[in-house]
């Protein structure tokens, strides 16, 4: 079971939260927004692969 994925997503979320706070404190709101967006895209790319695996497994299991 691939629990590393959960830790990876949580780590990216925490890092992005810290970067967000730092950039907002130093008065760069746009870059903070961009950082959040970039992190979200990375996390979504990771999760999309797992969803693809899930769909393939369900398709092959239930003969859809």
């Amino acid at each position, binding site marked *: *079971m*691939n*629990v590393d*994925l*959960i*830790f990876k*997503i*949580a780590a*990216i*979320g*925490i890092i*992005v*939260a810290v970067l*967000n*706070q730092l950039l907002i404190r130093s008065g760069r709101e746009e870059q903070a927004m961009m950082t*959040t967006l970039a*992190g*979200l895209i990375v*996390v*979504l790319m*990771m*999760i999309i692969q*797992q*969803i693809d*695996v*899930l*769909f393939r*497994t*369900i*398709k092959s*299991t*239930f*003969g*859809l």
Partner: protein
Amino acid sequence: MSIHLAGVIGAALTAAVFAALLRRTNSEYAVVLRTAAGVLIVLEILQAVLPALREISGLLSSAGVGGEYSGILLRALGVVFLTQFAADACRDAEETALASKVELAGRVGILVLALPLFARVASIASALVKK
């Protein structure tokens, strides 16, 4: 092969704790994290349920139920798994309307799957009435 229960529980609790941590600062990561945990757990369940499904289809075929009927049954089960997963993910993101739309889509899909069976039952009933 039995279900890896400790892994499922550990993944769920870890994801719950991290989602609670991330909810305060950026809630979109909490949504993604919950969906990832859901994908992992459903994959684990499917791996455990695969031998049981094979056993059940073997029992059905030995009981004389046609392969067509058990195929429709299994396909409906797959549709239920998928729509339940998607609807739960939407409900976690507090999109209740989207969740109910997904459930409606699943119901329509199962209805379309089961319509040939309804047609067959209706034809058998009409043949009995004519006798």
